[in-house]
């Protein structure tokens, strides 16, 4: 065997080993996806069933027997109902979170401006009620799942509207190209978040502000999962009491990551 032949043979061996490893990784990925799909099914169906019984019978008790309960009894019933409703909202959030990867559409060229305007329109009522002013620079075309990009815009807008300060919310969105990606920025004049908590806001079920603001702490976690599915990053720049700036990146069309 000549030197060239030997090198050629070694190269082919290495290539085959690599192919085998790749096939193994693909199989493992398939298993993980299937597990996640089974998990989301369990969340959507199996856990919901007993919860439905709890919620329904609590309502039935309230409907038929609330008048027979004293003030304390009614208070207990209220706490039980609140807990059940909260669990229901958490299950919904968890399901949405797990579906980011299992139910995502193909990434495609999407006009971010159109998606943003649609997301803002879906919050029309709360925008009117809070007197919010939302402004928007021209936004680019990006490589994204249109529905999921809409969810990111909607969740970030909702976040700014919910955690508003004592003045009417002002929210501005812009985007700048940096190399092969676009960096989106959403700035608000709301409550802001102390830098100590910046990592926590993107974690499932973590809330920084009190219960009076509602929500179960899933909105930003879902944003993070969506952006990461697109090969991007999301982060925050904020000080308590001085508004918040959320940033996220998305690949520009033609520069998509695999």
């Amino acid at each position, binding site marked *: 065997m000549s030197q060239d032949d030997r090198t050629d043979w070694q190269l082919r061996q290495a290539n085959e080993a690599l192919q085998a490893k790749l096939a193994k990784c693909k199989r493992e990925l398939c298993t993980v996806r299937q597990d996640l799909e089974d998990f989301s099914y369990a969340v959507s*169906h199996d856990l919901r069933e007993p919860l439905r019984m709890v919620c329904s019978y609590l*309502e039935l008790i309230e409907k038929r027997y609330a008048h027979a309960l004293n003030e304390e009894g009614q208070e207990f019933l209220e706490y039980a109902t609140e807990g059940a409703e909260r669990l229901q909202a958490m299950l919904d959030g968890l399901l949405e979170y797990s579906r980011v990867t299992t139910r995502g559409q193909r990434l495609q060229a999407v006009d971010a401006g159109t998606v943003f305007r649609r997301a803002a329109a879906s919050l029309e009522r709360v925008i009117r009620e809070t007197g919010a002013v939302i402004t928007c620079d021209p936004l680019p075309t990006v490589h994204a799942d249109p529905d999921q990009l809409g969810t990111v815009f909607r969740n970030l807008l909702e976040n700014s509207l919910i955690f508003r300060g004592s003045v009417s919310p002002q929210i501005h969105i812009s985007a700048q190209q940096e190399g092969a990606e676009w960096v989106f920025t959403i700035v608000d004049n709301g409550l802001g978040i102390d830098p100590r908590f910046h990592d926590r806001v993107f974690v499932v079920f973590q809330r920084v502000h009190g219960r009076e603001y509602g929500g179960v702490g899933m909105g930003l976690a879902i944003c993070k999962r969506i952006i990461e599915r697109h090969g991007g990053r999301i982060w925050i720049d904020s000080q308590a009491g001085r508004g918040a700036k959320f940033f996220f990146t998305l690949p520009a069309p033609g520069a998509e990551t695999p």
Partner: protein
Amino acid sequence: MKGWEMARPLRILLIEDNPADVRLTKEAFRESGCLTDLAVVEDGVEAMAFLRREGRYASAPRPDLILLDLNLPKKDGREVLAEIKSDNTLARTPVVVLTSSRADRDICRAYELGANCYVTKPIDLEQFLQVVKAVQDFWLAVVELPGE
């Protein structure tokens, strides 16, 4: 003939294994204020025996409408649905799948097997009452049912 034109209450067979759910469905029919004749069986094997009038169900009446839960012990709701729809005498009885699953695969499979409609049970009681009332109104007053 429409359900309300019958000289007797609409006969409904509820196939559901969870007693809490059975009770809730009964309460929903009660709240809707409409007279129905509701029979209940708790698993798929009992359901087929009832429908085929076997054993202790020899004199069971033929239902006008079947409400079927999907997850049942012994014989699954999907199997029950497949057996009903492939049986010449049973196939014409409308089957309403009434389940808490909103999974696409359950919905698609149920329609493939010949379900007449697929209804998910809402978590909220008021909504559940409305759903049961809507199902009842639709099958009683809107659709034409096969005669006996």
